[in-house]
């Protein structure tokens, strides 16, 4: 009998491969499992070859991609586990729960490495905020992020909110988390041994979120609301207990292997443990505690009920684990056993309902070689559209309008809804180019920088991808941090259209080249495809979080620290590009034009010198130039410093929009104390470096083009009128 593989979500080719590997037809339950496990979300079948382009090794990398999270070395026997993950489709349908469970899921990924979660960040992408529907959606997402993150006691130390009409029907919610782990307590899914018991710790299993992974692997349809049953429901209280209980069990050495239950629940987590540990597993479906009666083995295996962890425990430790779970008020059920023979077996009502080779489930989905072809308008996209330059009076208004742009304005109203300070290690919270926490156990400070520039990734995917990575590393370097590694979430539309697959491929190529040049390997990540709806596709949206460290004694160089009388310097090319810039987009120009071409050698040199500036305290304040260009960077720096500046650009520069608002490439502004100028200049010798003014007063004046009071700048940026 040929099963209905299409209904399960497999293609004819995939079904054929499955039958060949198995040597028989799968039964109905098995087919259900493969339908989800071989979905795009779980199998990366469209992107596996592309992801191989990323460099994944480096001196600090202890664990690269393939585990629940990557881990880098902070020294003193301490590691930092981190990862960013998408929760896009659920957030489109049910913003509060979608965002909340996104936060909860990434926290469990970090916990599964044996790490205590210490910092979260969120990348949120919405349609135009002028739409009340978008504002409602945003409100739900922000409340969801806060409602969950605040309660579990993990500080939300930063993030990014981006607005573009392409996200109107398909918002993006990318959740990042980092955790601190003692390397001698690190666990993984690779350490299960025959004879050990499999325990399910935490919430009961219900019908929520069944096949959510499959839902995440298809385009959003007009009846997306009909997917409500595939949305998971979060309980941060249960998560908090789960975190504390798991950390206690690890501390006491009671756990041999651990795995979180995210997408595709029991089947994904347990088959991964079996496959990676090179063992078999027998799970008794009748012993999984359920929320409701009458669930089929397939439903139980695929449920995405939240706040559950899979533990592998030595038989003589089971009682102690159960005792400690009870103390935390958590249910803990022995559901199976690890076996020598490498079979992955479910029993139900006394009979075997699933019997598969474990490695076939998670790892062997056939790769789909989608066709890749540049879009027909590739050249058109690269041309910078002509605009009418504002008249002499217009420059001030341009800058104020840019500061009011939702993509550049102050995002305080969002991040004040998140507890950014709990755990009392936050040195620099949301709002700056980098977020910074201290890790006392490692005598280190850790800097995070989240970046995304979907516009440049659309017009010039290669350089846009490279620019995204480079920008996040620049921010680390200016603050003085050495990059240890990065994580990324690749949010793209359907790969089945050749021009969209080409964009994905080019973005990855660009990102990989920048990672290589900047010695910042990729240690973890996530791919979210099919982000499109009948209303259209999203822009190519790689979200990057670069992570760097400083030692305890180093003073990080942050923005907004300048004092009156300090000299203002521009480092880097005076001219950047108006291509796909905020300046043009705000003025309603079509999305076109490229960023400056990426130069690895140039970027690496910038980062090296910027770190030397910070480490040697050769500047008082520093800030990278990004969205909105030099003018916006100056305005934000002054707002953070609480004073004005008198800026006079070199007379041989032809004043134009490109000078004031151009974006891209390694550029930064610095405030330098007069007595430090000579040393500062020396560090940038051979680089484009211009002294452009002095801090002081209460106005921003730039030659005869800009003259605005700091109050006006603040009113525009903060939206107080």
């Amino acid at each position, binding site marked *: 009998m040929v099963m209905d593989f299409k209904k399960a979500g497999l293609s004819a080719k995939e079904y054929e491969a499955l039958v060949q590997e198995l040597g028989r037809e799968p039964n109905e339950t098995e087919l259900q499992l493969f339908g989800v496990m071989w979905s795009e979300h779980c199998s990366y079948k469209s992107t596996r070859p592309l992801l191989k382009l990323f460099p994944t090794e480096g001196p600090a990398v202890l664990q690269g991609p393939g585990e629940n999270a990557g881990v880098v070395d902070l020294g003193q026997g301490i590691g930092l586990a981190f990862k960013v993950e998408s929760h896009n489709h659920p957030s489109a349908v049910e913003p509060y729960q979608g965002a909340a469970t996104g936060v909860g899921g990434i926290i469990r990924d970090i916990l599964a490495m044996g790490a205590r979660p210490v910092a979260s960040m969120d990348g949120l992408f919405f349609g135009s905020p002028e739409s009340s529907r978008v504002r409602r959606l945003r409100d739900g997402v922000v409340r969801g992020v806060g409602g969950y993150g*605040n309660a*579990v006691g993990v500080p939300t130390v930063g993030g990014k909110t981006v607005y573009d009409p392409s996200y109107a029907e398909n918002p993006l919610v990318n959740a990042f988390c980092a955790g601190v782990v003692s390397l001698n307590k690190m666990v993984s899914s690779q350490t299960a041994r025959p004879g050990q018991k499999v325990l399910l710790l935490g919430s009961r299993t219900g019908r929520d979120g069944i096949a959510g992974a499959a839902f995440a692997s298809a385009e959003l349809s007009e009846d997306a609301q009909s997917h409500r049953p595939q949305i998971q429901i979060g*309980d*941060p209280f249960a998560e908090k207990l789960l975190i504390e209980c798991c950390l206690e069990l690890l501390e006491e050495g009671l756990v041999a292997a651990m795995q979180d239950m995210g997408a595709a629940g029991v089947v994904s987590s347990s088959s991964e443990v079996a496959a990676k540990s090179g063992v078999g597993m027998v799970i008794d479906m009748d012993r999984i505690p359920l929320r409701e009666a009458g669930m089929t083995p397939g439903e139980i295996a695929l449920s995405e009920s939240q706040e559950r962890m899979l533990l592998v425990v030595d038989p003589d430790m089971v009682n102690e684990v159960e005792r400690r779970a009870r103390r935390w008020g958590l249910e803990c059920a022995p559901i199976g056993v690890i076996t020598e023979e490498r079979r992955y077996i479910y029993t139900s009502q006394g009979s075997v309902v699933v019997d598969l080779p474990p490695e076939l489930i998670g790892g062997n989905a056939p790769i789909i070689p989608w066709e890749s072809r540049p879009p027909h308008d590739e050249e058109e996209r690269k041309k910078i559209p002509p605009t009418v330059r504002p008249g002499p009076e217009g420059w001030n208004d341009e800058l104020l309008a840019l500061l009011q742009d939702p993509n550049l304005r102050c995002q305080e109203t969002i991040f004040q809804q998140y507890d950014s300070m709990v755990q*009392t290690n936050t040195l620099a919270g949301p709002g700056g180019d980098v977020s910074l926490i201290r890790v006392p156990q490692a005598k280190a400070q850790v800097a995070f920088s989240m970046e995304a520039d979907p516009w440049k990734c659309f017009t010039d995917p290669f350089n846009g991808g490279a620019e995204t990575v480079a920008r996040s590393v620049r921010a680390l370097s200016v603050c003085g941090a050495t990059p240890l590694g990065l994580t990324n979430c690749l949010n793209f539309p359907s790969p089945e259209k050749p021009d969209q697959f080409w964009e994905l491929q080019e973005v990855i190529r660009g990102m990989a080249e920048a990672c290589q040049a900047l010695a910042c390997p990729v240690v973890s990540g996530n791919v979210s495809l099919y982000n499109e709806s009948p209303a259209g596709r999203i822009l190519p949206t790689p979200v990057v979080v670069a992570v760097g460290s400083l030692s305890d004694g180093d003073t990080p160089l942050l923005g907004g620290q300048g004092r009156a009388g300090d000299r203002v310097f521009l480092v880097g090319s005076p001219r950047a590009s108006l291509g796909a810039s905020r300046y043009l987009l705000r003025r309603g120009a079509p999305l076109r034009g490229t960023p400056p071409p990426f130069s690895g050698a140039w970027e690496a040199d910038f980062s090296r010198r910027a770190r030397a500036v910070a480490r040697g305290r050769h500047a008082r304040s520093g800030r990278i130039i990004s969205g909105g260009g030099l003018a916006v960077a100056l305005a934000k720096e002054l707002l953070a410093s609480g004073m004005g500046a008198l800026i006079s650009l070199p007379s041989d520069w032809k004043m134009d929009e490109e000078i004031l608002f151009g974006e891209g490439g390694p550029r930064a502004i610095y405030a330098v104390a007069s007595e430090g100028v000579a040393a500062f200049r020396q560090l940038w010798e051979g680089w484009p470096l211009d002294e452009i003014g002095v801090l002081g007063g209460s106005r921003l004046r730039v030659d005869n083009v800009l003259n605005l009071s700091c109050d006006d700048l603040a009113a525009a940026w903060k939206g107080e009128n």
Partner: protein
Amino acid sequence: MRSAVIVFPGSNCDRDALRTLAEVPGMEVEPLWHDDTTLPPETDLVVLPGGFSYGDYLRPGALAARAPIIAEVRRHADRGGLVLGICNGFQVLTESRLLPGALLPNRDTRFICRPCLLRVDRTDTPFTNAYQKGQVVQFPIAHADGRFYLPEEDLAQLEQRGQVVFRYCDVTGRVDPSVNPNGAAHHIAGIVNDRGNVLGLMPHPERASDPRIGGEDGKMIWDSIRAWCQNEGKRSGHGHGF
């Protein structure tokens, strides 16, 4: 000087309080579990930390107020021992009637996390004797339910007895609805009981006890407690200050 931090399921500032007490005033401090039934002997100070005890189910603090350890905290307070409730701890104190009033959802119904300026109105308490009267200090707040409420008559009585210790204010110490983050009655951020040995406040002094993390204005709370314990300890023997 000995202190204890009560850990409820869902507490999330317990570790911060433990670390601050151990590192800043250098107190002996230990965590106590919500279903413990005794305090360690000679405990001077009990801290109810911030967080979401029992997931804030029913109302913030409502379930924690019925935890086994609370009976012992009440006896400790009755003996004149010091009790400090921070944020969710303040909510637990009002729910257990160790302090008057209630903490309602913030005026705009949102969670708010940011530094706040506070005016110290009472400096004759065990918790605030190191401050100057009228001094303006900065502690962060982080809560969704911090709007202090009491019926008008009770509020008048609270004021009359001088039980208000901290109020939200501006840099000059002026109180005003525009600088009141959550709509609290009379801009109240923290109060003591009539006897003065139980303090509840929404802002977090433990997040303002390190120059690199939120400043040092909170340190004087710990200095005050230390000074008071030392003086009272000398004068009247242990734990019987009032």
